[in-house]
């Protein structure tokens, strides 16, 4: 058990979540290609929840610290993780046996994914080009992506948003909004 605890506290922190993610992906692929196609989403989500519970439970063996009067650090996480595993397993079984509603109809998931990519791009860009430029561009690009027809009005709204964040958050609330390494490097 000591060897397992040491492994969990080290490499296990990377390996176990990766195994969990792989199992979730595999369950989705298997369900998509088999007769459970209509339930693939639900099966993947429930499998993911079971994996989260199992990985969390396993990771508790890596907690290093003292115990005090029977109340250890792993007690409560194990309780919640165990509860999650058992209940998510029940749902998973129901999904596999077709006793659940099928997946909801797929809408404009492409738009959602593009939005998520835009959000990720914003997060990546802020430390480099700063908050103000990124925020302005983000509002503009996001509006275009969602199909707002008036570009001039959209540009104006983006500019107003940047001015609002500067005045309220930077000046009034003194939140140090990042100006970006690029401009800091240029000495601005």
């Amino acid at each position, binding site marked *: 058990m000591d060897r397992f605890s040491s492994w969990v506290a080290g490499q296990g*922190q990377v390996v176990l979540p990766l195994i969990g993610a792989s199992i979730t992906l595999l369950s989705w692929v298997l369900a998509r290609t088999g007769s459970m196609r209509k339930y693939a*989403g*639900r099966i993947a*989500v429930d499998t993911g*929840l079971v994996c*989260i*519970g199992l990985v*969390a439970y396993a990771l508790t063996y890596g*907690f*290093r*610290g*003292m115990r*005090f*009067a*029977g*109340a250890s*650090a*792993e*007690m*409560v*996480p194990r309780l*919640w*993780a165990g*509860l*999650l595993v058992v*209940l*998510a397993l*029940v*749902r998973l079984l129901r999904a596999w046996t077709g006793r659940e509603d099928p*997946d*909801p109809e797929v*809408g*404009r998931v492409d*738009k*959602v994914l593009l*939005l*998520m990519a835009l*959000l990720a791009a914003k*997060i990546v860009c*802020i*430390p480099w080009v700063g*908050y103000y430029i990124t*925020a302005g561009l*983000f*509002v*503009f690009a*996001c*509006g275009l992506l*969602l*199909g*707002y027809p008036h570009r001039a*009005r959209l540009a104006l*709204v983006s500019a107003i*948003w940047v001015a609002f*964040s500067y005045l309220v*958050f930077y000046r009034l*609330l003194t*939140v*140090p*909004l990042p100006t970006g390494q690029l401009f800091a490097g240029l000495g601005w």
Partner: protein
Amino acid sequence: MDSLIGLFQAARDLMGLQPLLLITFGVIVGILAGAMPGVSPSMGVALMVPFTYAMSPSLALVYLAAIYLAANYGGAITAIMINTPGTPSAVVTAFDGYPLSAQGRASEALGMALIASFLGGAIGTIVLMLFAGPLANIALKFWPAEYFSLSVLGLSTIASMGGGNALKSVITAGLGLLVCTVGMDPVLGVSRFTFGNVHLFDGFEFIPMLIGMLALSEVFMEVERFDFRAQRVSDTGKAKWPSIADYWRLRMSMIRSSLIGTIVGIFPGAGATIAAFISYDVEKRLSKTPEKFGKGAPEGVVAGEAANSASVGGALVPMLTLGIPGSATAAVLMGALMIHDLQPGPELFTKNPEVVYRLFAALLIGNVIMLILGLGGSRLWINVTRVRKELLFPLIFAFAMIGSYAVNSNMWDVMVCVGFGIVGYILKRNGYPLPPFVLGMVLGNMAEQNLRRAIMMAGPTAIFQRPISVAMLAVAALSFLIPIMSARKKRKAEQAGLDA
């Protein structure tokens, strides 16, 4: 009688131009702080403390208390209009406030929230004035076992949140409770699920997670549906304000929730959010149409708002009488009092009674000013629903991100917000209700800390050794099982009807 004379004297003192302007300004600051995600009521009060250095102690307290009072109402505005609760306690208001707004009934939701806040604030203050001493003594008798049972009682409300699927509710609550254990263990300081990331040592910040889970996930869902023309319901027709008859119909909900809010607010650490959740659950159980909750029930809006506003008075009870703050904002207020050489506790009533009475009077006057400003302001907020969603959604994203950043001034919180937004979207798309997750996050720490403390003090059976604790656990078990069993009974009856 002395108290009443003291109160009238204090109210008369506050009727001057300077105190009234100060209370009005405090209410405006409070509403704005509450409405802005990332700026909590405690942060709003803390930011204003330096402005009070030159004021007299009474005026400083009056000003800061007005901010505290109004911030709880401010949180409802963004919760109703854009599903982004400005304060954690406003999350409950969003459950029904935002669906009402989406149905083109934003003015109704805002009106209900305002009146409920007003009534809740007034009842909380009156209870504070009348029962401060005895109530504080009851709260002081609670041990960790009772606090744990109180959190279990709070958790039992998830059974009625899942919209007929209790299993899904319990799973999302379990996930929330598990996420809550990320960070340093609160009792022994052991690092848990941090993966060596220093940002995780304090766990996930609540506000970014809340914004992600509720606001971003909702926007993702709406974008997936992408039928904005059909959803812009508020473009047509005039905004309908609730009538007096509407308010009258909800009077009992408001009074009940206000009383629950005040009582829960008294318990240190319980706070406005738990009060709002419990009141919401009680109203849902008592309602003849519980299926409407979560889809735009006015009772849901008033329950959350009345309870969180009433909890202000409750949270001030232990602060004024025992020197124990009942909430984070009460702790900041206490700090402000100490800056002005006033020591909260039993002696405050004997040494500086005028300060205490002015505080009571300020809360009552501030409440009236909040009502007046809210009535005028609500007509402005309604215009948000008239903004095209193609324009509103980018602004919600921008607001969510800057609000998350403002909490600790770091990009990590922005990532947490987006990450939980994606998780929330996946769960919501598959029919998992998100409110139980939030409840798990709210109650997780309180449940864990007190369970472990109780076990340390009295062994593994600690929570069953104290009568109040056992009674609360029994009520929790009943309140969890009854909605499940009645939902099952209803389903069976419907099935029998169909078969017939």
